């Protein structure tokens, strides 16, 4: 790698090795974390940066919001703490929303790696903290000050020794000091694992540093990204979408200008900054935007400094997608998760075969606070996914998070570590967005809490008013609902007190469909009806499929003749009211 013309074989060997180094870094963090969303959901990111602070490689982990926001973070750190002042054993930390992952609950830790007395690289990771004080994770705050402890770029470790003052400050400000402090140690430890492996690699291949490797990788990634953009027809692609917002629906608008090998995505026309904590910092906006672009046009190109270069993401200052300090940002993912779907909808006109219809998009984030039967307080958080949007090649996946990459937590585990009771968790029939390919089904959960105390539900749910739209004539999925067992509707984004014996039913939204429902293969409709996921009535009204019961219990078969007749007569009607989501 010190030579002039890089040998592609050696480069591939080194690149693979570098990827395995960051994988190891990420796994070390997952295995030693004390926070279940990190362990079970992979809510973290890990990566390596060259001496100039450019991200070269990162592990494939949980969520784009962490992965892509980390890309620019080292520059922020180095502006505050110049590289020449760093010593071996130092580690830096911040949770500055504008500079890193968009809310205070994500800490980013950066560690310089020394070799031969000089910095050769930085390892960084971002990971969700169980608590950062303040009001607790939610959208209720009016300013970031209410959202918890803000740690500007600071040393977490100094020459191998923990910065006790900072740790004391953290312990004093968070509700779960043990887990939070444990995770900070785990974050620093995982960077050390990466650093040790990188030094081994540098020595083994006699590299000196990784600057030349980084140049080559970033240049090639950039070229690959430019090739992918060039393959799109030049033009202006626009789309808009609505999210529930806090009290009023919020408009999100994107215009994508594809020109040669560059792509400019601008969010002008989106709603202004909100008074509630659903604001998104530009860094986070860019993270989910580039994620959406990558899924559609370049899934194979690695994420690094180079691959982001030809993609420009902008939003007006003060927009909900470019929130300025001290706007509250706690529940920024609620809006951020909509961006890949928005981008896909815009690109549907150019590449209909490679995009998704809208899905539930935003994760449903449930936080329950209350008392155990013995009286001790508890807090438990879990995430759940609704249906994914349909694709040209297949139906949308049911109860699967997109764009977030997290995992759900099993009911048995939830009940094991908290007094929360899961009374029901099933797919939600008739929630799919009909289409030639239908959207994924949402899920329905009925939850309660053991014991005699009332409890608080901190809801962070979306798509209760603005359902997931289909593409190319596909219909929208069912909107979400939150309801108590008494049939009372709850607010989807507030903290609400629930009586001790009351249960809450979460009905998660379904994904949008792809193509006209009346073009759906009737056999597939029959299967969904046999499975009890679509009603026979709906099959007839929406899909134009007439079914008959077979001799086998619960099984339905297509009445081909009646179906043909029905579809011939009504072919245009069910699809008509479903055009609104088709992009533009």
């Amino acid at each position, binding site marked *: 790698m010190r030579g002039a013309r890089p040998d592609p074989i050696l480069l591939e060997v080194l690149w693979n090795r570098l990827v395995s180094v960051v994988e190891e870094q990420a796994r070390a963090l997952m295995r030693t974390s004390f926070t*279940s969303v990190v362990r079970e959901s992979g809510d973290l990111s890990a990566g390596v940066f060259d001496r100039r602070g450019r991200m070269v490689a990162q592990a494939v982990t949980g969520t784009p919001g962490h992965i892509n926001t980390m890309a620019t973070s080292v520059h922020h750190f180095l502006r505050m703490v110049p590289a020449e002042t760093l010593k071996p054993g130092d580690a830096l930390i911040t949770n500055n929303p504008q500079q890193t992952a968009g809310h205070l609950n994500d800490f980013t830790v950066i560690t310089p790696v020394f070799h031969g007395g000089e910095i050769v690289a930085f390892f960084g990771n971002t990971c969700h903290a169980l608590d950062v004080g303040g009001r607790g994770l939610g959208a209720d705050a009016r300013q970031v000050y209410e959202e918890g402890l803000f740690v500007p770029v600071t040393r977490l470790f100094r020459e191998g020794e923990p910065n006790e003052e900072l740790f004391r400050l953290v312990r004093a400000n968070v509700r779960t000091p043990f887990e939070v402090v444990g995770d900070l140690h785990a974050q620093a430890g995982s960077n050390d694992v990466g650093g040790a492996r990188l030094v081994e690699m540098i020595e083994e291949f006699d590299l000196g540093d990784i600057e030349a490797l980084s140049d080559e990788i970033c240049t090639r990634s950039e070229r690959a990204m430019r090739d992918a953009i060039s393959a799109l027809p030049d033009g202006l692609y626009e789309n808009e979408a609505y999210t529930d917002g806090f009290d009023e629906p919020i408009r999100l608008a994107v215009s994508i200008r594809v020109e040669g090998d560059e792509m400019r995505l601008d969010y002008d026309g989106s709603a202004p900054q909100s008074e509630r904590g659903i604001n998104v910092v530009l860094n986070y906006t860019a993270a989910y935007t580039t994620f959406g672009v990558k*899924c*559609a046009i370049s899934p194979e190109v690695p994420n690094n400094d180079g691959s982001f270069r030809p993609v420009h993401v902008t939003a007006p200052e003060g927009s909900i997608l470019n929130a300025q300090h001290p706007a509250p940002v706690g529940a920024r993912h609620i809006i951020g998760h909509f961006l890949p779907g928005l981008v896909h909808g815009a690109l549907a006109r150019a590449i209909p075969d490679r995009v998704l219809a809208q899905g539930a998009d935003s994760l449903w984030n449930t936080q329950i606070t209350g008392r155990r039967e013995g009286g001790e307080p508890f807090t438990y958080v879990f995430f759940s996914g609704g249906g994914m949007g349909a694709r040209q090649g297949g139906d949308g996946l049911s*109860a699967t*998070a997109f764009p977030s990459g997290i995992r*759900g937590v099993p009911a048995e585990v939830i009940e094991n570590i908290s007094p929360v009771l899961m009374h029901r968790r099933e797919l939600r029939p008739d929630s799919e967005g009909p289409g030639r390919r239908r959207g994924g089904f949402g899920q329905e959960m009925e939850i309660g809490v053991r014991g005699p105390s009332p409890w608080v539900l901190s809801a962070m749910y979306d798509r209760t008013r603005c359902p997931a739209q289909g593409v190319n004539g596909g219909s929208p999925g069912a909107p979400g609902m939150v309801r108590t067992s008494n049939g009372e509707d709850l607010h989807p984004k507030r903290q609400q007190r629930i009586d001790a014996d009351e249960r809450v039913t979460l009905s998660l939204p379904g994904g949008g469909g792809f193509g006209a429902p009346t073009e759906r293969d009737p056999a597939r409709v029959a299967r969904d009806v046999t*499975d009890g996921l679509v009603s026979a009535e709906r099959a007839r009204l929406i899909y134009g499929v007439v079914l008959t019961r077979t001799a086998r219990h619960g099984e339905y078969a297509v009445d081909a003749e009646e179906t043909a007749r029905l579809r011939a007569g009504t072919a245009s009607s069910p699809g008509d009211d479903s055009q609104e989501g088709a992009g533009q």
Partner: protein
Amino acid sequence: MRSNKRHRVGIDIGGTFTDLVLIDDETGDQSVGKVLTSQGDPSEAVEEGLLGLLGREGVGAGELGTIVHGTTLVTNALIERRGAETALLTTEGFRDAVAIGTEHRYDMYDVFIEKPEPLVPRGLRYGVRERVLDDGSVAAALDEGQVRSIVAELRERGVEAVAVSFLHGFRNPAHERRAAEILAEEAPGVTVSLSSEVAPEIREYERTSTTVANVYVRPLVEGYLRSLEERLRRIGFEGSLYIMLSNGGTASVETACRFPIRLLESGPAAGALAAAFHGRTADFPEVLSFDMGGTTAKACLIEGGEPLTSSEFEVARVYRFKKGSGLPVKISVIEMIEIGAGGGSIASVGPMGLPKVGPRSAGSAPGPACYGRGGTEPTVTDADLVLGYLDPDFFLGGRMRLDREAALRAVEGGIAGPLGLDPVEAAWGIHQVVNENMANAARVHAIERGKDPRAHPLFAFGGAGPVHAYRVARALGVPGFIAPLGAGATSAFGFLCAPLSFDFVRSLYGRLDNLEWAAANRALGEMEEQGRDLLRASGVEESDIRVRRLCDLRYVGQGHEVTVDMPDGTLGPEHTGRIITLYRKEYRRLYSREGPDVPLEAITWRLEVSAPPPEIGPGGGDGGAEDPQEALKGEREIYLPEENGFAPVPVYDRYLLGPGAVLGGPAVVEERESTVVLGPEGKAEIDAARNLVVRWSA
């Protein structure tokens, strides 16, 4: 004087071939047989192969003490969905647990991924009114009337198999057992499996998935094993038939019929056992077993002569062999990493303009370009052929001719042209990239378990393993590698290394500082008693039984459990300190760091009973010469990066190399199913068991 029943046979049914290995326990002599697998009833080929082998060796079926058998039947039935019509009874409100799964997209960027369809369609998944809580208490009694009416419906629907998996059934199995009783009363012909017996561990999705998969294949496996037993009796076999399990142990036919899911992946498990055995005889108690076949490479760490095991596995992947796209099963398995790097793996230029190998594979149809069956993309085998590592006239012992020109064209078109390299450079690139991929995967695998990847010599088998072993071993920086004789029958041989063993699991959750010790002791006691009964019933002497008691512990609040050996005897609060010490030691070993000062909680208790591993003599002693000159077949040119090009090297016939023979690299050693490529710094020696043991000369 020949004692009666001193012979044992290992039989491995693979997709294409059924391999047999016969061992004379007194002399250690081995002989190998191979027949085509019979596709309809695989036991036909077993009979044919066995009669052939015994006839050749002049051994009567009555002289066989033991047959150990492994089969891919379960894996294939799950991949091809050929199991029984199965229903699921689960807690009301949770019948979609098997469909919802983990809610996880296993590929972050690919929006076209698919998830596996549950083995039981939704219409056959029944929610039953009952509820057990996390502490085992009953919140709602089992609605027996409802169960009866469901069973009546199942009978009407002709269901053959039923899985019962209730929420927290592993904590309190009373409802599952009662449902089983009702099933037995009302539908006696139906096969039933309970989650509390098949996989009594927390996490409803994985436990239910395992239980369903188990019962789904039960009728098939029972039918097959009974038919095999009968065939063997008919030809005069009077010994014991044991079935190889995924964790490297063996079980009786009875146990295999009840828990067929434990038969998954027995072939690779046996390969790891063979690696452990040969490693011990070659004085390498720690090896990395390295099995490189047509589509994938598998690696497994052997520590202290024993392979590592894990309790998680995934079968029947539905999307590009990707991890996460299969059905999860909670069974004890030999822990392996598998990567998409085999002889058939396709090399291509990726979007970054760099050469990539796999995970796409040309498989056996069309196969590598050099097979001449229509493949045009370059594969690892094509590169190996271009580099001279394979002899086009001696592939599979000459049974198949390889077309070097076709390989060259494929490498030229797929890699060399686009990258501006000459074809040989490109072929070397493919060889090197695939080696590095395997080395990286093995390195991460080792380090994740707190092992030094440089400490483990490779044990290389499978068709392509010995071809690549030299360079993979060099890339990993290990002290050498071992290539066994008869790389094709390694699994069948491994069966004969397996001890008879049984595993038990109980979930019993509690913080160590206020654990219900009596309940833990009771669980351990019951598991031990069951295990001893099973071993005694298989003819194992009481005094030979080995018992291992383990507990999965974790820091309160942390997610990953660490499995720790428990002290002997009745456990109580006085053992807490000792257990914490053992835990911390293991934690340090795994994560190379001290754990925090936090209380521990126990999650799952495990118990293994086993008989001593069978003794196998050195075997294969005679045959072959000590002087390698007598095994010299000729010379051919192979690519050596050290020479920057091709250089002539000697080619040896593996079958003519006897114990004590020493040869220096560079050289090629050929046998029917594989080829050992030795680089310039390798020095090979044939050991007493006729393994080829390579160490570095410099």
